[in-house]
């Protein structure tokens, strides 16, 4: 889908077209899922985040300015949502979502056990290197280094100043490098 087509669909969605919105959901949900998974390290949490993101997008469509890129706006909503979840997770005692018991339950419920296994391993792998980062550091690191967004785009998505992005990225990289050395 080209940028112009996406913008047109966004305008149609603003006018109330659910069909246009569905096309946007189909186009953008894998991208949002990937980002949410890398931030939350869990398939279920990532799927919840995707669903909530698109519901918020629909509710706030009247605030969207078609001068800006629709995908960036959706990313911004998704990132805010994931950031809130990361902060909430930091305040709560550590969940044992990666425990063997819950993992076995998940396998029995999920149809695609192989995909679930891959996701679980990947989630654990990411969490191992990023668990000690603050939500802001994790956000900036994931967007800049893992997702490969440019500095300007990260600025637009997170709403952080260039200085804050730089400092958070520096600290995140430093922490991960130290973590690699310790292995």
């Amino acid at each position, binding site marked *: 889908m080209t940028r112009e087509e996406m913008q047109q669909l966004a305008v149609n969605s603003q006018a109330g077209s659910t069909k246009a919105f569905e096309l946007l959901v189909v186009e953008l949900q894998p991208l949002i899922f990937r980002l949410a998974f890398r931030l939350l390290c869990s398939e279920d949490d990532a799927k919840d985040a995707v669903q909530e993101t*698109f519901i918020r997008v629909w509710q706030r469509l009247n605030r969207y300015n078609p001068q800006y890129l629709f995908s960036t706006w959706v990313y911004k909503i998704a990132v805010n949502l994931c950031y809130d979840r990361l902060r909430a997770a930091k305040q709560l005692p550590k969940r044992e979502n990666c425990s063997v018991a819950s993992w076995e339950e998940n396998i029995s419920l999920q149809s695609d056990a192989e995909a679930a296994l891959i996701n679980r391993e990947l989630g654990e792998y990411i969490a191992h290197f990023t668990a000690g980062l603050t939500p802001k550091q994790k956000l900036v690191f994931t967007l800049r280094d893992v997702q490969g967004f440019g500095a300007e785009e990260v600025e637009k998505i997170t709403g952080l100043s260039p200085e804050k992005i730089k400092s958070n990225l520096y600290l995140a990289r430093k922490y991960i490098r130290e973590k690699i050395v310790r292995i």
Partner: protein
Amino acid sequence: MKHENISYDELISKLKSASPQFSDPEALTRSIMLSVERLPLRQKQHTALRITGFLSGVAACLLVCLLVRELAWQPATFAAPIPPAAVFSEAYSDRIAAEIEDVSSRSVPEKMRMVADIMQKRRAQSRRWKSAHEKLQNSPLGVDKEQYFNLFNISVSR
């Protein structure tokens, strides 16, 4: 995935290449669309309408503030001094009352004459009052109040 010895760049390229498996995206789309169809889409409000609403709100707040002020504080003009009744001599009003009472014992022509007399006196008194009032208005501040009341045979109680 094993946590083998890797460099930072290797880790990043590994994380980039290892995308999570997105199983059953159609089900998620259906679920999103079901939720969305239940929610009403908020239409864009006209800017003029929003500004009007905002201004109406501000005006309403101001009116409420004025009302509260009116109720809570009395304006200073309400506290303007009123001359006490005791300033005027009781003798003056007694004399008038006695004159009126006396009228009932007299004949009609006498009564007419009396009324004419009283009216004449009142007119004369009114003229004196007016001229004294003008005099007082034109006089500089600090004029003796006793002198003013003496013009009307009124004693000042202190």
